[in-house]
């Protein structure tokens, strides 16, 4: 839920920015990397393997088979059910993110084939209000699940979220139940659901649809958990152990199936989907 704090920091990090710099400095190993090289490397630092955040389009480009993607999201737009005002009115905040991302809310996706497997691919957008889940994100996830069930598609969701969206109050909270229940339509048809957890995935998203997948993959070094580290530190009044709540730690705890380098993400997803998908799959 500690979203706003997080997305205030966002612009100083890699990936989403529009400034046409030629060189990018790695926040982990300080290496200066030529931007074009970094892009070709899917924004993984060639020196230390640090995974920069990348725009949602990158995941679509990486995962969807060429020319197979057909967007279905975007018809649902957020409103201001609570009349919420913090440092600015919620509608203004929304307008700002909408302008920045060109999308109505923090999710993007549609039909695609992935390694030949008919799929619904949904990607959460951390650049939009910290990927927070309000009514629209919940609705799009539910519609995506319903679409997958209706058309016998696998469901693939790439998550990135600070949690539920405060500005929609309890309505945001209820999206946890809504998305969870919608998944059962997919499961009832014996279709697979695969989740890719990226940095960060916390709060209500982790505590609902994100962790209910048949297969949970996580990008290296991603922060994944229920409570954010700051909240935990406040609770226990001591520092957190190194690597706590990071993908590798969660793997050890039996909570994710694999930690997958972004450069091997597509082949890994395809490998799982082709075995978990019940229908015939063309060799793609």
């Amino acid at each position, binding site marked *: 839920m500690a979203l706003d704090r997080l997305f205030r920091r966002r612009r100083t990090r890699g990936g989403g920015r529009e400034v046409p710099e030629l060189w990018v400095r790695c926040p982990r190993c300080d290496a200066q990397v030529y931007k074009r090289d970094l892009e070709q490397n899917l924004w993984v630092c060639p020196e230390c393997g640090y995974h920069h955040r990348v725009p949602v389009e990158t995941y679509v480009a990486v995962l969807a088979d060429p020319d197979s993607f057909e967007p279905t999201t975007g018809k649902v737009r957020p409103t201001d059910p609570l009349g919420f005002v913090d440092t600015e009115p919620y509608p203004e905040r929304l307008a700002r993110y909408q302008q920045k991302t060109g999308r109505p809310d923090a999710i993007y996706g549609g039909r695609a084939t992935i390694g030949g497997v008919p799929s619904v691919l949904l990607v959460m957008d951390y650049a939009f209000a910290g990927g927070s889940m309000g009514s629209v994100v919940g609705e799009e996830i539910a519609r995506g699940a319903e679409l997958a069930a209706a058309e016998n598609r696998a469901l693939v969701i790439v998550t990135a979220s600070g949690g539920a969206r405060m500005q*929609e109050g309890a309505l945001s909270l209820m999206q946890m139940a809504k998305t969870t229940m919608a998944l*059962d339509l997919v499961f009832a048809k014996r279709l697979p659901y695969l989740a890719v957890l990226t940095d960060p995935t916390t709060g209500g998203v982790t505590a609902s649809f994100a962790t209910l997948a048949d297969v949970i993959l996580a990008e290296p070094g991603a922060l994944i958990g229920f409570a954010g580290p700051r909240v935990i530190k406040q609770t226990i009044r001591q520092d957190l152990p190194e690597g706590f709540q990071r993908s590798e730690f969660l793997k050890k705890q039996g909570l994710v199936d694999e930690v997958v380098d972004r450069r091997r993400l597509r082949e890994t997803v395809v490998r799982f989907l082709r075995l978990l998908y019940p229908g015939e799959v063309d060799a793609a």
Partner: protein
Amino acid sequence: MPLEFERPILELEEKIRALETTAREQNLDLSEEIGLLKEKLARLEREIFAGLTPWQRVQLARASGRPTTLDVAQGIFEEYVELKGDRAFADDPAVVGGVARLEGRRVVFVGHQKGKTTKENIARNFGMPHPEGYRKAMRLMELADREGLPFLAFIDTPGAYPGISAEERGQAWIIARSIQRMSRLRVPAVAVILGEGGSGGALAIGVGNRVLIMENAWYSVISPESCAAILWHDAKEAERAAAALKLTARDLLSLGVVDRIVPEPGGGAHRNPEAALAELKRALLESLEELDGLDPEALWQDRYRKFRGIGAFEEG
């Protein structure tokens, strides 16, 4: 310790008690004076409670003396037994539950459990469950399904415990599972927000066919304090956050998040738990009656329709 806005009421009550003592000891007839004061008291209480701010309701929801899950069990069931442990790792004292008889009808219940004293509260971890608590809840859901008994859930938590021990055992994972398991119940499920309905830790046992809320309870995506800390970098802005979050019973009813408000007696449930529990019992029985005769598929559909429909957005 009384709440700030309760003071005038308590002072007037004190005055009435003093007069009554005087009357008795001095054998005087002060019944007229006392009668007038009692009328005034009732008026004052009505006035104060009609004008309660969301933040004041949050305080009421946390008031000591407010009925906890075990108070409810004690108060509304003819008999009950507690089942303990998650059969895997620990017994989480922040979650209680078991099998009970409600007006002759057997039910399975579960609820967050706070303590009455500081010591008890520490033992109960202030009603903040670890994964084990949700595993216990899920064990009870299994039992309800197998025995075909209605499932009652009492929500009263500031939230799931946000600590290392909970995170490393998959707090998020188990909350998601608990939501999923409850949504799949083959029996009628009724959830009641008794006091505090803190975020995912509350919703984990909140996927009822009917969701009721006590008049002065709150239910929110985040506590007012945490919300204030994030938005205004100051937990003292909690009052503002409480208002902004629309977390009161009436707000939630109009948002479609809850189905029914259970009225509390004048002064709040903590001042008259018995009256509050009588109302709660009535509401529970009526809710169960509404769900009678629905088969597992119809119950699932009912829950799906309900939660699928919650949210605010525009098409196009």
